[in-house]
């Protein structure tokens, strides 16, 4: 057998046009969401902003988490990820929406969501003041999104060069712009590979920093006397888990419209399932690491955070979060078959996604004062806002899927080498003298 790396031949997979059902679904969601949003702001702007905040955190976490899956796959050169890498990357389309959606929250919603504006904490004014908070979050998140979009650009560029000539007329202009200053396919692939190799580690660092900042400012500061050094890692690793689960669900949903059978193999689902399983366990580990230290320390200013979440009215939601993000997926995905079967994997990944949504709710809401008798503050504003963001999320994904190839066509040269080592059984001819 010659030294012919077994490169995977991949046909172009792109949605010709957005499926009617998906478009209808997204429009309906956005429609209901807008009505709910208006209703919520008319009845109680404070509650509306809080619902907005936790939903923004959730959908942003999913989008950036999935993009980080693509970046990590690039750092670790995980060959298994090739069929799903682009799907993970496609979540990048939501990031601009997320950035725009953050602006009104910070500019107009601040007084409704940050308790320290009305009651400043002595000694913390230097950090907990609105102008500085707005500036640092916009800068940090802007930089994160800028890197993500650069990453997407360089990952897409060689593919657009490959498909430029067959592209439908309405995409020609776009592809031309993306492939400006073209240097030839081989040179471009090598160049993209170099760019991605630099961008991906930078993204990992900036992700940890910027999402820690989000956790400190948009979660931790809601209980201004509380602090926890682990809240940052807890927040961004949960977002990464959300990205993995979202990738699993998206891949399964794309299977029919994109014709992925034969490209995304059961072994790929197996790998996505293993990672989802592993990061569910890791999420529980981080949760426990934070909880145990606080429980044992018995310090009032630390315990309030936990107590607010484990008492009524929020206790049932907290339990549901633990079930959905750890217990159910852990035991559900323990075996091989559930990881390989799309229906089962999709079910458990969806459970994780619901769990993460409730988790972001539980991170935000109990920080505000609620009395037990009022009942759980959960209803139209919370669900309506989720529908609105969810609809926009689907639109963003469709926006990407109708424009760009959804399976990566080009393959970095170093991957070809690795593949040559991995695909052939050991002991085959590799080099000859």
């Amino acid at each position, binding site marked *: 057998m010659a030294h012919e790396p077994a490169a995977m031949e991949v046909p172009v997979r792109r949605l010709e046009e957005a499926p009617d059902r998906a478009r209808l679904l997204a429009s309906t969601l956005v429609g209901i969401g807008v009505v709910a949003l208006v209703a919520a702001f008319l009845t109680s702007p404070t509650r509306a902003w809080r619902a907005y905040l936790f939903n923004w955190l959730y959908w942003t976490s999913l989008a950036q988490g999935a993009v980080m899956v693509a970046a990590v796959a690039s750092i670790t050169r995980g060959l298994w990820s090739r069929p799903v890498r682009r799907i993970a990357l496609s979540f990048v389309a939501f990031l601009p929406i997320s950035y725009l959606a953050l602006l009104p929250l910070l500019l107009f919603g601040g007084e409704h969501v940050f308790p320290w504006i009305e009651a400043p904490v002595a000694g913390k004014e230097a950090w907990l003041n609105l102008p500085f908070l707005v500036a640092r979050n916009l800068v940090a998140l802007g930089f994160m999104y800028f890197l993500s979009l650069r990453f997407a650009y360089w990952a897409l560029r060689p593919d657009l060069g490959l498909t430029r000539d067959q592209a439908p007329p309405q995409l020609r202009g776009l592809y031309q712009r993306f492939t400006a200053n073209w240097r030839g396919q081989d040179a471009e692939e090598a160049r993209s590979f170099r760019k991605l190799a630099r961008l991906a580690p930078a993204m990992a660092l900036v992700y940890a920093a910027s999402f820690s900042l989000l956790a400190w400012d948009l979660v931790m500061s809601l209980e201004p006397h509380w602090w926890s050094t682990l809240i940052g*890692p807890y927040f961004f690793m949960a977002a990464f888990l959300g990205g993995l689960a979202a990738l699993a669900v998206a891949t399964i949903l794309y299977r029919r419209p994109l014709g992925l059978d034969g490209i995304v193999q059961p072994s790929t689902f197996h790998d996505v399932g293993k990672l989802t399983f592993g990061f569910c366990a890791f999420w529980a580990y981080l949760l426990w690491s934070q909880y145990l230290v606080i429980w044992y320390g018995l310090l009032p200013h630390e315990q309030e955070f936990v107590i607010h979440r484990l008492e009524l009215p929020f206790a049932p939601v907290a339990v549901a979060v633990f079930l959905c993000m750890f217990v159910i997926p852990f035991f559900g995905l323990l075996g091989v078959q559930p990881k390989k079967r799309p229906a089962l994997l999709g079910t458990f990944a969806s459970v994780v996604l619901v769990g993460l949504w409730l988790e972001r709710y539980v991170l935000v809401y109990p920080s505000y004062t609620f009395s037990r008798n009022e009942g759980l503050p959960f209803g139209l504003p919370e669900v309506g806002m989720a529908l609105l963001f969810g609809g926009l999320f689907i639109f963003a994904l469709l926006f990407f899927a109708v424009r760009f190839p959804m399976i990566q066509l080009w393959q970095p040269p170093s991957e070809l080498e690795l593949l040559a080592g991995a695909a052939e059984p050991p002991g085959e*001819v590799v080099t000859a003298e």
Partner: protein
Amino acid sequence: MATVLRSETHPGIASYQEVNRDILKILGRPGRGYFLLLAFVLAVLGLGIFAWMVQIVLGIGMAGLRNPVGWGVYITNFVFWVGIAHSGTLISAILYLFRARWRQSIYRASEAMTVFAVMTAGLFPIIHLGRPWIFYYLLPYPNQRQLWPNFRSPLLWDVFAVGTYFTVSATFFYVGMIPDIAAARDATSVRWRKALYSVLSLGWRGTDREWKHFTRAYLYLAALATPLVLSVHSVVSWDFAVSIVPGWHTTIFAPYFVAGAIFSGLAMVITLLVPMRKVFRLEEYFTVHHFESMAKLILLTSFIVVYAYVTEYFMAWYSVEVPERFAFYNRAFGDYWWATWIMLTCNTVVPQLLWLKRVRTSIAALFVISIFINIGMWFERFVIIVTSLAAEYEPWQWGNYQPSWVEMSILAGSFAWFLMWFLLFMRVLPPVSVAELKEVLPAPLRFRRPAGERRP
């Protein structure tokens, strides 16, 4: 035209026979240099044992431990050695599960290092006791004294965590070695070796059935060992974090300690493998690629450690609590400022050199960096333990700590104890996996085919 088949990962190794020859050669009769080194190591160990005896006879006061610093160099050593024990299981179990293919030639030595490091770490809680002969009070079992340990104490969790870790990693180490011991058994003619290997290889003959069970066992042990990598050092971190001492009581401790442990463990693997590679001419086995991959992991874990340092300082400032703020100010500018700055330099500045590919692929540079990291990680534990205990909440309770010659001798003795086991191991058991290396080599064929020709 003769065609030579080569493996991609180990192009310098031509055949199965060469693996057997090169690896099993290490098990031959050692030369003078080896015995001299062993004698030196034993002498240092003797010094450590002597110091311990002095402490037992004359009392724990021979150590520099005084109120308020009750945990000094001994617990620093304990945490340091438990940390060193981490990379072995990471390399052998986690990288196995992640299908990282670069582990196969280095995992045996790092597993051995893990087992010996746990054996070293386990000594220190006992050395630390005023009456070490009643250390078994820690073990929970039904007894006539009607004594039960305090199950709420993290020190007892340590007993379980470290005990479990030792059991599983020793089993994993041994099970993975069985086929290689059998190879050594078949190759040796020395009588005591033949007898030893015959017993240890459990009658391995390499049948299909045996391999089938072996691979299953290996996979399950790997899956079992993986959560242990996280749990052991998390529990060790809770020895500190669950108390309310400023500088200790912080939620990030568990993942931060785990990352630090992997960081220091990988550095120790490099420290040990570089001389071993040189002395036994294993350049074809421990390739530059292996070292580069380890360097990348070191860079990653170094960033997790940096993240934890930064977050701790930020939160101390953000908390507006006087004791919190003071604890971290005191670390950087108090009496132990030098220890803190050694730690910060070695753990945050020096590893940044690994961004450069030239450094990552230079064995000499990696060796030097790994020693810096070993020093930095020892000081990290020293800083955490000593600076926090020396200046807790009440200023009238403050007091500094000075390690005595007894503690320093025992520290030196612990390195000797660890190296003694490693030296013995290298000459008695195959220090590189023979069987797994063969998995990536070209299979022996009756006819060598020229490249490009199909198999008949």
